[in-house]
């Protein structure tokens, strides 16, 4: 039986990777790294995990080695964060276009400068369009569960795409909290062996990553986009099976008290859970508010989002990153464009908060709802960029 234990979330993720029986781990061990790969290195050294741990000279190579291992037919894992992900960027695109089902644990942290190692979502927004399936975990349990599910999704022959599981740096990575960890026996067999349709095998040579001449590149990109768009049905299937087998429910778009809410606060990551506290408080005052989360970031769950916020009068989108000179929040832009085609649609306004490790207090969430009510009353949008919790 699974046992409930107080464990650092990073170590719970390492445990999930071990139970997924990963065969190759490649990672670069410097700030910003987490305890995930440190623990995996120890497991390999102690003989608790039969895997190759490749220590590399940069994050760029960490992803290159993971992609190479995956092409050779091995279940590959890596973990990174902020600047590390930025340095990896070139190969992040290759992992998806080569259709390698690598799983990456991504501790969301800010990008420099000024130099910051603290939590926000600027790192993941940088790879938003890189073609990876991208899922947010909001607490330790979810990070653990989703790491296991990630391989189930990634290695499905209908998918064959890399998956990144995102969770807030420090706020989750360094948090001790209760997590139900499966006993090895219980989870054994959950993942079938990784059996890619093609692999780098000298007996059956295959050319991976050939030149995509203008006659080929367009078709290759369409094929890649089709794969990630259609993966949503597999993702839902894996979520449903997991719920049936283990009882914990995951949805592409999560929501809390949203059905009859006039104002919905929409966010991503661990703050989504915290918004529920503000919702409870405001509900006690008689305000019809709710909250929602785009858990599945890519492929973007258009239909699920439209259903979740259909009845609201206004959606306040909380961004944890800035699209400089643009939308101004990457999440805001996505939500607006997803709701635009609807005939009857809620108003959508955006706020930004929690940059570079700044705490978002309960009063801050209440303020965000206030912006929503203000918009309802006056039709006036907060100006770009409105940052809640800013000194001004």
């Amino acid at each position, binding site marked *: 039986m699974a046992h409930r234990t*107080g464990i*650092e979330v990073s170590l719970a993720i390492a445990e999930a990777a071990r139970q997924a029986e990963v065969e190759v781990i490649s990672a670069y061990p410097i700030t910003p790294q987490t305890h995930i790969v440190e623990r995996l290195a120890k497991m390999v050294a102690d003989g608790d995990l039969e895997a190759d741990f490749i220590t590399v000279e940069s994050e760029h190579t960490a992803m290159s080695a993971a992609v190479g291992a995956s092409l050779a037919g091995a279940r590959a894992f890596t973990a990174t964060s902020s600047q590390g992900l930025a340095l990896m960027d070139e190969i992040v695109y290759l992992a998806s276009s080569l259709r390698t089902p690598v799983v990456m644990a991504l501790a969301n942290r800010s990008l420099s400068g000024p130099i910051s190692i603290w939590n926000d979502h600027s790192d993941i927004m940088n790879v938003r369009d890189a073609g990876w399936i991208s899922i947010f975990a909001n607490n330790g349990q979810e990070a653990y569960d989703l790491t296991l599910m990630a391989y189930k999704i990634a290695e499905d022959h209908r998918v064959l795409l890399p998956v990144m599981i995102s969770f807030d740096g420090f706020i989750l990575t360094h948090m*001790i*909290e*209760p997590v139900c960890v499966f006993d090895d026996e219980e989870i054994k067999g959950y993942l079938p062996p990784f059996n890619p349709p093609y692999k780098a095998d000298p007996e059956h040579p295959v050319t991976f990553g050939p030149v995509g001449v203008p006659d080929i590149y367009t078709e290759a990109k369409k094929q890649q986009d089709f794969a990630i768009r259609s993966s949503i049905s597999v993702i839902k299937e894996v979520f449903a099976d997991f719920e049936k087998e283990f009882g914990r429910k995951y949805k592409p778009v999560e929501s809390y008290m949203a059905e009859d809410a006039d104002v919905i606060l929409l966010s991503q990551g661990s*703050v989504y859970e*915290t918004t529920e506290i503000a919702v409870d408080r405001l509900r006690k005052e008689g305000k019809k508010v709710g909250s929602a989360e785009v858990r599945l970031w890519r492929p973007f769950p258009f239909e699920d989002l439209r259903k979740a916020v259909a009845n609201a009068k206004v959606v306040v989108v909380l961004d944890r990153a800035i699209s400089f000179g643009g939308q101004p929040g990457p999440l805001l832009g996505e939500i607006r464009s997803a709701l635009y085609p609807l005939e009857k649609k809620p108003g959508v306004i955006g706020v930004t908060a929690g940059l570079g490790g700044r*705490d*978002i*207090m309960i009063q801050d969430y209440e303020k965000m709802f206030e912006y929503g009510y203000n918009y309802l009353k006056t039709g006036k949008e907060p100006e770009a960029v409105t940052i809640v919790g800013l000194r001004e």
Partner: protein
Amino acid sequence: MIEIRFHGRGGQGAVTSAEILAQAAIEEGEYATAFPSFGSERRGAPVLAFTRIDKEQIKLRTGIYQPDIVVVLDPTLIESHNVAEGLKKNGLVVINTKKPPEFWKEEIGVNRVCTVKATVIAMQELGVPITNIIMLGALLKAEPLVRPEMIEKRIRERFPHIAEKEVRAFDRAINESRVIQ
């Protein structure tokens, strides 16, 4: 929900105190979270660590600004920091000090104080000035958040090589700390 803030210096084990307390509470079936103030992992630098304990899932993940309890691992911190900042009314302060609780009650201006000569006990029992487990003993004497056996169990799991010494130091802290409330 009970919120506890630990004040220490890098290397004294404030983060470990927070973690062990949370893990003991989780093992007792409660919900608990523990985390450090991020980014100050340097020996000697002032460090904060936090523990929350509740009957329900803890969804609040900010730092602790209005603690119920403050634990001070190093008395020199009181000179440079307002360790009681934001302390709730009737909050408890637990201090590693040679001075009596009455002194600190006056000095800090709080009602509930628990003192323990943690560095003295640490040097005698462990031979190093690491006071984290000892401070948990004092904390539990003033506020029985978890059963001491649960802490002892965690000590044995986490520090198997020095478990007997740590447990003895922990027990001494429970016996020797002084509380006024």
